């Protein structure tokens, strides 16, 4: 990496950390530290909510997703605005009226301490793993492509986040997320405009979109009712709604963001801002990935974008076969380039040539086949190697084609995104441990200062745990899958508890607690039996918790109360 990139990267990250510490130093109370003194304006709440969700992997994986599979992934976010409206109408007024520090505090007021502790512990397990992953996932990609030490990178990102989160709590998270979102959006816009600028002479965005469309990358909306189709309008609205409701409504890393709003109205406006901007933002990130795809129609790309795969192959007996595939890809790319240029000429004359489109589709299929053969060779060489290279496409483009200075800015963008999500997670883990576990169980009256120091202490403890998890993850194989599975196993039950709390007034503490325990055990058993895809576990968990609690309230626990009345 060039010196200028190092300077831009270091100055940007150190400025964000320094600014965060300086602006938010000297929190005097737990309210200041956990709720940011309830002084956050709506647009900061909105930016903070968006920065928390958009982790580094969003900016690395999403363009790669579009490069490989097109724009269809955006449909996953179609249900999110509906969830924003429901949370604004129901969740926020309740949380704000009860003046809770964490979402789980509400559960004690609505049910009992057992239910609160159960939800808090489930959150701590799940978010602890998830936050470690928000450091590890970008670190593994960046370190692979730049040859940096993975453990050192994990530790550096972790320590930078601990410094400002420890110093200023939620206020520091919110303040730094504003800067981070600015760097993230600036980086994405600059990358987008440079990709378009690097396309062949006189090629308009419209022509680039025609090329992408001919290769099936512009299929944004899928109206199919086939349940086996991964991304459709219907699964996006229904599944996206369900996931967004669980994530924004019950995960303290998000709840903590909007609880820091100046008023109910400011918190609601922050979420509504997210509802307005999320879909276009994801569309833009995916569209950048599609433009990267068009770019590689005119420029040679590697057979596999993951540099570790190349290392695996070079050490194996399959190296000659791999080289043969590479040569075939070069010939194919030249052919693609020629046909694309003729296709553009025809487009400029107002003719969308169907024969050339068919040729492009056929070449694209042959390219995909070559890449699949390469992946198969990598797997043969080392069955444990990660042959999937989607996540590496965008960073490969950044490092190999962008000018000095911008590479530093884009790396700052990726690490800023990692830090913003990690900081929200860390702040949520510390506040949940301090408020729902420590404060709830500590005996005697303690001062405000005592709880403030305890929250700061838990920030450091969780920071160290997260760094350890990120470092330890390097030894684990399918980490993305592992974290998604852990999330899916636990999210459904917690959402079920909250939905019963808000909407089924009839159900009381005992019924929901036992329903939640049975649901959790059942969900784990269903997962172990491997009878359904793990993403369905969210839905099963929530529905089972709701239905079982209603059933228990109507039968087992109803009887006992009636008996008491009779006696």
């Amino acid at each position, binding site marked *: 990496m060039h010196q200028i990139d190092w300077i831009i990267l270091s100055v940007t990250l150190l400025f964000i950390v320094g600014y965060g510490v300086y602006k938010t130093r000297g929190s005097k109370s737990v309210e200041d530290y956990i709720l940011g003194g309830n002084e956050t304006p709506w647009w900061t709440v909105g930016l903070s909510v968006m920065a928390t969700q958009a982790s580094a992997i969003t900016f690395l994986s999403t363009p790669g997703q579009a490069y490989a599979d097109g*724009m269809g992934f955006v449909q996953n976010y179609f249900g999110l605005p509906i969830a924003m*409206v429901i949370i604004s109408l129901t969740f926020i007024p309740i949380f704000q009226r009860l003046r809770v520090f964490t979402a789980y505090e509400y559960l004690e007021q609505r049910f009992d301490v057992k239910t609160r502790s159960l939800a808090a512990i489930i959150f701590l397990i799940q978010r602890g793993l998830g936050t470690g992953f928000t450091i590890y996932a970008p670190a593994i990609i960046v370190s692979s492509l730049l040859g940096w030490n993975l453990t050192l990178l994990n530790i550096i990102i972790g320590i930078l986040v601990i410094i400002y989160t420890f110093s200023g709590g939620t206020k520091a998270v919110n303040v730094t997320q504003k800067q981070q979102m600015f760097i993230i959006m600036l980086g994405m816009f600059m990358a987008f405009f440079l990709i378009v600028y690097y396309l062949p002479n006189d090629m308009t965005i419209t022509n680039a979109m025609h090329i992408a469309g001919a290769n099936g990358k*512009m299929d944004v909306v899928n109206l199919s009712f086939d349940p086996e189709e991964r991304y459709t309008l219907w699964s996006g609205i229904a599944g996206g709604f369900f996931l967004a409701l669980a994530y924004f409504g019950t995960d303290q890393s998000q709840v903590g963001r909007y609880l820091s709003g100046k008023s109910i109205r400011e918190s609601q406006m922050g979420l509504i801002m997210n509802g307005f901007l999320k879909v276009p933002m994801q569309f833009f990130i995916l569209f950048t990935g599609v433009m990267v795809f068009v770019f590689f129609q005119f420029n040679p790309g590697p057979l596999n974008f993951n540099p570790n795969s190349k290392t695996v192959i070079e050490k194996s007996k399959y190296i000659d076969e791999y080289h043969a595939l590479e040569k075939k890809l070069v010939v194919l790319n030249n052919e693609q380039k020629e046909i694309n240029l003729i296709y553009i000429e025809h487009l400029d004359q107002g003719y969308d040539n169907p024969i050339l489109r068919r040729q492009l589709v056929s070449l694209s299929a042959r390219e995909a086949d070559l890449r699949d053969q390469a992946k198969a060779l990598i797997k043969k060489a080392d069955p444990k190697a990660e042959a999937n290279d989607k996540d590496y496409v965008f960073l490969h483009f950044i490092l190999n084609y962008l000018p000095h200075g911008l590479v530093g800015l884009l790396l700052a963008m990726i690490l800023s995104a990692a830090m913003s999500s990690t900081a929200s997670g860390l702040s949520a883990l510390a506040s949940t441990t301090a408020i729902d576990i420590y404060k709830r169980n500590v005996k005697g009256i303690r001062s405000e200062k005592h709880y403030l120091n305890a929250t700061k202490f838990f920030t450091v403890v969780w920071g160290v745990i997260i760094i350890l998890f990120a470092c330890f993850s390097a030894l684990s194989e399918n980490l993305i899958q592992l974290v998604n599975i852990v999330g899916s196993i636990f999210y459904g039950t917690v959402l079920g508890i909250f939905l019963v709390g808000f909407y089924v007034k009839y159900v009381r503490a005992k019924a929901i607690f036992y329903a939640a325990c049975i649901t959790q055990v059942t969900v784990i058993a269903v997962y172990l039996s491997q009878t359904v895809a793990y993403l369905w576990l969210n839905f099963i968990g929530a529905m089972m918790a709701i239905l079982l609690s209603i059933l228990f309230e109507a039968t087992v626990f109803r009887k006992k109360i009636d008996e008491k009345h009779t006696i």
Partner: protein
Amino acid sequence: MREKNVNRWKKSYSWVLLANAAYILIFYFLMQIFS
């Protein structure tokens, strides 16, 4: 006054849903043009 505020909020919630419906329509037309 309170009722006015509530109405205004209901309206803004409608707008966010309408805006997203418009996004989906725009995406659909883009797909029709370029795919």
